[in-house]
């Protein structure tokens, strides 16, 4: 199969060896939910490995270790558990500042109720704002600003208990009124969460610390579609803004939250500096309040982030590009933590309203003709796992077999021939991919594979804004996308439900314009699910339907990593007030609350 020669070969062997050592060293610890499917996916991911490859032995034993309890998704880069915590024995030092290179700038600013907040934005936002709910290391929802959250099915109300004694950075109190105000503004038409929370009818502060969110039951006595609510509160919608910020006409320039850092300075496309919140409500190990760091300066750098850290110019960076992450492996003076737990899938959206892509044969042919595993091996050193559905291993809804077509170019060509016999020659398919050198090279390889099958491809690179616009207006055949993930499979509701599908030329939140009864039904089931089994079944049904209908061409579950100077410690640790730890790395996002710098 694929052999690498020279440096590439060595690199893969080294990387796998590192994992093998790391996995063996912490084979006993269990950091995340493992179900049986994780074990089989581990085997599956490596069945395509080259047995002639001398690194094959190392990776096999690595996967045995994986079966023992690691998340078997990405298997060749150090995970948050692997990072050598020698620092645990060192005394924590307070003070200091770090610089952090981000993938992109958040041009629209920090009013997250109104504007998009992709990964780079969230990384900054999580320092200024605290979430109502977060995800713990086992993948369960845990209250953060909330002490508890429970659904009262009799009254059809989510009862949220706010944690007492927390203040916003401007001194305002975090109480039920403040939380209710925040949530109410999310229901307004300009809010980006308006659709996701469309089932909420009212939000009321019933006493000092209790908020009730009323979700009316279905018209015909069906259960209330309230199951997705905690998932929303664990995301962008749950980052609580102060009442003064909500009232500010320039809220996007003056974010005020309860988070460990406060915004000090924002110069768009240059830097965002946040400074320690002296009155933060969580305490560190030494009894004084968190955070340990004095200051974090974020710098948007679309290119050259890895080089910036390796040259000592910047302290820390995140990336979903394996070639960046590889530079940190076995590199003295630097640490790398990577993860694809609850990963967002990378995929190509297919536009159902753009003939002939509404014909399933064409969609299946596109999937059959694309050798996804080879692309992963060639472009990402074989590190990410080949995806077959929207939900990553370890997530609810994940299935080892979804019916998504395996690579079979002959079958693909046969389908194309069949279609062309009826309809004449297939027109070129328009493919919009993301900006950047790496994406261009990958797209060329993909196009080559499709060309070999007789499908002509016309690809263009698009900036984020053009992407969003093409998607909304349906001006595409295939559109590369990276979205979703997280512990709640129902969070993609408005993107896949037919109620949000508008014709081409009109603004549609459902970019693919999927109008599928099975998917609609199961999305609704997930929203109203009252027990975990029903939830899981509905999610798995969605997975299967996607696999069968090929509405999206799944490519991989995105591996995100952070590379940083090894004098920074505890970069993925957040002790939860209710006990336990937060998920270390969630699609590249992590908390800097307990991070500290060794100045010595």
């Amino acid at each position: 199969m694929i052999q690498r020669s020279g440096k590439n070969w060595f690199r893969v062997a080294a990387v796998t060896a590192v994992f093998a050592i790391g996995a063996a060293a912490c084979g006993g610890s269990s950091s995340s939910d493992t179900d049986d499917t994780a074990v089989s996916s581990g085997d599956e991911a490596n069945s395509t490995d080259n047995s002639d490859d001398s690194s094959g032995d190392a990776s096999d034993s690595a996967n045995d270790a994986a079966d023992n309890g690691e998340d078997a998704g990405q298997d060749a880069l150090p995970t948050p558990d692997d990072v050598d915590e020698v620092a645990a024995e060192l005394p924590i030092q307070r003070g200091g500042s770090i610089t952090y290179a981000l993938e992109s700038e958040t041009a629209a600013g920090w009013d997250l109720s109104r504007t998009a907040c992709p990964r780079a934005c969230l990384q900054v936002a999580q320092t200024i704002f605290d979430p109502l709910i977060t995800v713990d290391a086992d993948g369960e929802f845990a209250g953060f600003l909330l002490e508890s959250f429970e659904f009262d099915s009799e009254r059809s109300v989510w009862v949220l208990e706010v944690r007492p004694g927390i203040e916003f950075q401007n001194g305002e109190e975090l109480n039920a009124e403040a939380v209710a105000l925040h949530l109410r503004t999310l229901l307004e038409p300009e809010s980006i969460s308006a659709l996701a929370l469309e089932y909420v009818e009212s939000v009321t502060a019933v006493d000092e610390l209790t908020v009730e969110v009323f979700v009316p039951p279905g018209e015909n006595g069906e259960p209330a579609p309230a199951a997705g609510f905690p998932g929303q509160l664990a995301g962008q919608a749950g980052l609580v803004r102060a009442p003064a910020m909500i009232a500010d006409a320039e809220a996007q320039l003056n974010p005020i939250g309860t988070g460990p850092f406060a915004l000090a300075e924002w110069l768009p496309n240059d830097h965002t500096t946040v400074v320690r919140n002296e009155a933060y409500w969580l305490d560190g190990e030494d009894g004084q309040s968190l955070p340990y760091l004095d200051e974090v300066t974020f710098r948007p750098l679309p290119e050259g982030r890895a080089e910036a850290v390796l040259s000592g110019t910047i302290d820390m960076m995140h990336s979903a590009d394996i070639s960046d992450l590889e530079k940190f492996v076995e590199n003295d003076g630097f640490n790398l933590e990577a993860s694809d737990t609850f990963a967002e899938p990378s995929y190509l959206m297919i536009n159902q309203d753009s003939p002939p892509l509404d014909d399933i044969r064409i969609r299946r042919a596109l999937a059959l003709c694309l050798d996804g595993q080879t692309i992963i091996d060639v472009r990402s050193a074989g590190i990410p796992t080949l995806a077959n559905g929207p939900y990553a291993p370890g997530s609810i809804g994940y299935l080892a077999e979804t019916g998504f077509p395996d690579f079979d170019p002959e079958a693909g060509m046969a389908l194309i021939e069949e279609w062309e016999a009826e309809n004449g020659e297939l027109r070129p398919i328009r493919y919009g991919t993301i900006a950047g050198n790496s994406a261009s090279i990958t797209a060329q390889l993909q196009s080559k594979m499709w060309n070999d099958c007789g499908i002509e491809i016309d690809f263009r690179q698009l900036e984020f804004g053009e992407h969003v616009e093409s998607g909304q207006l349906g001006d595409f055949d295939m559109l590369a996308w990276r979205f979703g993930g997280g512990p709640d499979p129902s969070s993609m509701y408005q993107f896949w439900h037919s109620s949000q599908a508008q014709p081409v030329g009109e603004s549609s939140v459902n970019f693919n314009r999927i109008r599928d009864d099975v998917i609609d039904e199961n999305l609704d089931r997930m929203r109203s699910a009252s027990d975990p089994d029903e939830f899981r079944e509905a999610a798995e049904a969605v997975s299967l339907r996607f696999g069968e209908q090929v509405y999206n061409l799944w490519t991989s579950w995105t591996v995100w990593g952070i590379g940083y100077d090894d004098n920074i410690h505890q970069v993925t640790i957040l002790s939860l007030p209710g006990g336990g730890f937060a998920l270390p790395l969630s699609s590249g996002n992590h908390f800097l609350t307990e991070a500290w710098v060794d100045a010595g």
Partner: protein
Amino acid sequence: MGVLIRRRLTQLVLVVLAVTSATFIMLEAIPGDPCRQRIGPTATPEAIELCHEELSLDEPLPARYANWVGGVLRGDFGESYSNGISVRTTLAQVAPVTLQLVLYSLVLSLVIAVPLGVLAAYREGGKTDKTLMMSAYGMLSVPSFVLGVVLILLFSVHWQIFPSVGVVPLSENPPEHFRSMVLPVITLAVADIAIYIRTLRTEMSATLREDFITVAKSRGLSNRRVLWNHGLRASSLGLLTFVGLNVGRLIAGAVVVERIFGINGIGNYLVNSVIQRDYLVLQTLVAILAVAFVLVNLLVDILYAVVDPRIKPGTQT
């Protein structure tokens, strides 16, 4: 001189109006909606419409142009559609670094090129001349983005002498400022050094053949004096033409350099505004650049007159 300045200023207004209306029309043709970008994938038609109203994007083209012109005349250069920050504020923050980049590059290239160009002309046909010309051609044959990336790999990542991205402001830490400017300035200046050496050498070698040089020498003036005072002075016109023409190229080159080195200057501001479809910002930037361009030309014309009083002001050769 007064006539020249008056004429140029009238020209300025015309050029700016012509350029900005052309830009306005061109921007309309480029597909893209700043509101959709700003709100993101979950944008509903209502949200988009509300945004359009807020940003006056629902008004017709001529009305928007008129509003913009009115605003500029009032001193209101507009705000970013993305975050409401005024163009004035951002420009004040990003302009210095680009101006420094261009200025340092200009100084560096002239400081290196002038002596070398004179030397090459003086020793025309000899080994020095040939070596210098070859080096000049060599420098002209390397694209800036390759040079920049290679410099970063060598001097930043491997030898860790200079930072790979970003520039420290002059006011914050002068030594660090210059250290962080070294690689970007070199990248920007290299091509110019080559061009200036060649230009000057050609000019000088032709000048040195002229009668008045022979006369000067026969009057017993030292070679050095002849070379620098008489020769260089006469040749500098040709060089000036190039420098003037080049400023535009420098700004364009700065865009590439800013991208490679992660510098947030005017080039970066321009590029990001295009990506974000920040029409108002773009309009203002285009207008400012047009004004700057005409002013630089004016300056060059004045310099011409100063350097060679024989030349009627305003006729650039």
